[in-house]
């Protein structure tokens, strides 16, 4: 990579500047990785120091505290109760009681089974009453993993609450010593709708996210390190257990898949490539064509603006599964388009919209344009109208034609405002399950990839592949987990690159 002085740099064309930025980013990667690890090292060191300080603080609280504080180390909330904060004290005590009861009755069991994920699978036992053999279900790997994770969450929450309890005692003691009054229960309740109102507001949404998003994601990440699948469902046939990094090796190795097909890594590579091509084309065709339509409707002198917009917006309202399924059947071998073209005598053989890989991919992208333009038209309309009109006025006086005005004013402005949107839309398209699944279901099938889990097709994205793996005959959940983690890695990497390159591009655009 060539380094430029400021003056030289300004003389470069836009493309060269961009290439330079990109090169700078990629050559900067080793340094960035180095800095990243130094940062992590520092963070670990700081975290460790903070932990040591915390423990010191807790110890000194115990040593210097009065008997109320000391008792609170064992009986949470005791200090609050004896100092008149009844509500807080009772809540602390209740939490401790629930925790102890849970750990003694079930939590301890789940935790102890977590390293093995269960020892005894289902057995066949003789039942004297029925005079026959019945299946007895013993350990349940799925539940062990699930409740094991939950128990760990619970323990962390308990430790945190315990520390809070200790700190409150320390503070309360100091307050009373210096002659200040403690907050009464009434103050506490009032603060729930005032200073601490954010806690009240966040309680419900965050609980939902924790239980129904965070916990499942942690669980599924762990599944990637097990052999959980249809044949090891952890309950009624075989238990599943930890397998370390085996699944990652399977996905990334070059060995051939089962049934003599190509290796998983080849299949994964093919699907990933198509996913990226699709996301790129889907995002930018929609973006530019949507902007184009919006500009046509916005043009001075075009009448019935509202009607044109309403017609397009209306299509947003109709549930996607109806329009996509209908359009999918329209393009089918015996669908409306092929049948009518045949009856008109324009073609003899039906066009292979969904049968030929290249046809299918192009058709999917074209139909996606049909799906996406109304939405993009809406988004861009508002921004287009915000571009100061005098910019165009002065450009016209300088003799710029329509194309030059677009290149020099409209496009930079739009890219500046919609940069973040383009990124989310790109990653959204990578995971655009609906359009692909409802239109093609991944078809046409890729025979070379038949050895890999599920039947993989030429229009399959990683996300539809993941779905097929989990619903396929073998239900290889562990493989689905690995693919899901890969999707995360790709999305996170792209976001990281774009966030690092984008602002510098933005600053370059001139708005005069």
């Amino acid at each position, binding site marked *: 990579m060539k380094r430029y002085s400021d003056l030289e740099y300004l003389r470069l064309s836009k493309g060269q500047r961009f290439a330079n930025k990109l090169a700078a980013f990629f050559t900067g990667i080793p340094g960035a990785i180095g800095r990243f690890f130094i940062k992590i090292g520092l963070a670990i060191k700081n975290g460790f120091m903070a932990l040591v300080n915390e423990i010191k603080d807790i110890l000194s609280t115990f040593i210097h505290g009065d008997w109320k504080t000391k008792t609170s180390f064992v009986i949470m909330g005791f200090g609050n109760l004896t100092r008149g904060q009844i509500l807080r004290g009772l809540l602390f005590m209740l939490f401790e009681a629930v925790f102890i009861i849970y750990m003694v009755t079930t939590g301890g069991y789940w935790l102890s089974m977590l390293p093995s994920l269960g020892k005894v699978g289902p057995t066949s036992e003789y039942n004297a009453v029925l005079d026959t053999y019945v299946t007895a279900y013993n350990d349940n790997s799925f539940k062990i993993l699930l409740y094991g994770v939950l128990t760990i969450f619970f323990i962390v929450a308990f430790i945190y609450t315990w520390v809070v309890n200790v700190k409150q005692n320390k503070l309360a003691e100091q307050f009373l010593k210096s002659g200040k009054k403690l907050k009464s229960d009434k103050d506490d309740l009032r603060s729930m709708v005032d200073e601490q109102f954010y806690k009240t507001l966040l309680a419900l949404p965050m609980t939902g996210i924790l239980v129904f998003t965070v916990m499942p994601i942690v669980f599924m990440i762990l599944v990637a390190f097990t052999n959980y699948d249809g044949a090891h469902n952890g309950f009624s046939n075989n238990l599943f257990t930890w397998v370390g990094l085996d699944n990652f090796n399977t996905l990334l190795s070059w060995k051939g898949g089962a049934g003599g097909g190509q290796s998983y890594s080849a299949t994964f590579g093919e699907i990933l490539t198509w996913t990226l091509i699709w996301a790129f084309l889907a995002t930018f065709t929609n973006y530019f064509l949507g902007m184009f339509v919006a500009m046509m409707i916005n043009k001075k002198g075009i009448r019935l603006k509202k009607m044109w917009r309403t017609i397009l917006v209306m299509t947003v309202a109709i549930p996607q599964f109806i329009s996509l399924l209908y359009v999918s059947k329209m393009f089918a071998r015996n669908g409306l388009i092929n049948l009518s073209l045949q009856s008109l005598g324009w073609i003899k053989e039906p066009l292979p919209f969904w049968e030929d890989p290249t046809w299918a991919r192009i058709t999917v992208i074209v139909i996606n344009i049909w799906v996406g333009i109304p939405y993009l038209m809406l988004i861009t309309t508002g921004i287009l109208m915000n571009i100061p009109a005098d910019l165009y006025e002065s450009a016209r006086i300088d003799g710029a034609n329509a194309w030059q005005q677009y290149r020099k004013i409209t496009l930079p402005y739009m890219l500046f405002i919609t940069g*973040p949107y383009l990124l989310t839309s790109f990653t959204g398209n990578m995971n655009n399950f609906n359009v692909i699944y409802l239109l093609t279901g991944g078809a046409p099938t890729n025979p070379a990839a038949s050895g890999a889990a599920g039947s993989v097709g030429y229009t399959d994205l990683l996300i539809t592949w993941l779905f097929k793996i989990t619903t396929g005959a073998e239900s290889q959940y562990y493989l689905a987990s690995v693919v899901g983690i890969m999707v995360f890695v790709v999305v996170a990497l792209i976001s990281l690159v774009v966030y690092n390159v984008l602002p510098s591009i933005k600053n370059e655009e001139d708005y005069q």
Partner: protein
Amino acid sequence: MEQKRHMGLKTLNRVSNTAIYILLIIISVVWLIPFVFILLQSFRVESTYQVGYVIPHEWGWQNYLNLWNSDFKRWYLNTFIIALASAVLITIIQLCMSYTLSRFRFKMRAGLMRFMLILGMFPGMLTMIILYRVLSDLGLTQANAVPGLILVGVASSGMGYYVSKGFFDTIPKSLDEAARVDGATRFQVLYKIILPLSKPIVIYTILTAFMGPWGDYVFARYVAFGTSAGYNVAVGMYSWLTNDQIARMYTTFCAGGVIVALPVTILFLCLQKYYVEGVTGGAVKG
């Protein structure tokens, strides 16, 4: 000379405007055609499979009668209940979330937002496997899929706070401060000052939350798999277009499509203004 140039510009403008009108008409036709086709084919009686013409030879209500005699009623009711419950609950949760993140400055705020950004990068489909097992342990799958779908849809809706946070950010903070100086609690500020100003975003959130479940296919299929009584319209009608059903059910699918799309579209067109405001205001900033 000057006159001539002026005339030239005018004709040029007229030509380009005409071209734009032609393009816009073509676009409108292309965008509306599938829906017109669905409507026309839903009245076709002479055959139930795909044909090479659009206008029915014989008109009638047969397909709509078929709908009435199928499980479609149940699916429609299921979807309607889910949509209604989602509209209420998701709106409450998302407004709580976005208002808090827009107005309060607390220690964990930045970390929380970054955390949710990272969570959003995991494909949501990954969590289906475990959510299904958990729901099935709670007895909320198959025939009881409706409460299960509501629960899952509502629980993680807090992550979609971006659009309404963008809106709340535009309400000047000086309003809050003035009220706080006058002795209002944070709750009173929200209830008496912010909410009345937030009508557009509230309606936008209700509208999108209500429309979402009508097109929800993948998780609904996962949860209700194999039990018709737990289907929503998307899962149910998808089963009509499988290879062994399509010849018999194609026109019925079209009729179902009309019945599903009509109320949603009418509602949408009535509230179009708010939707456009939400999309153009919040979606881009988010």
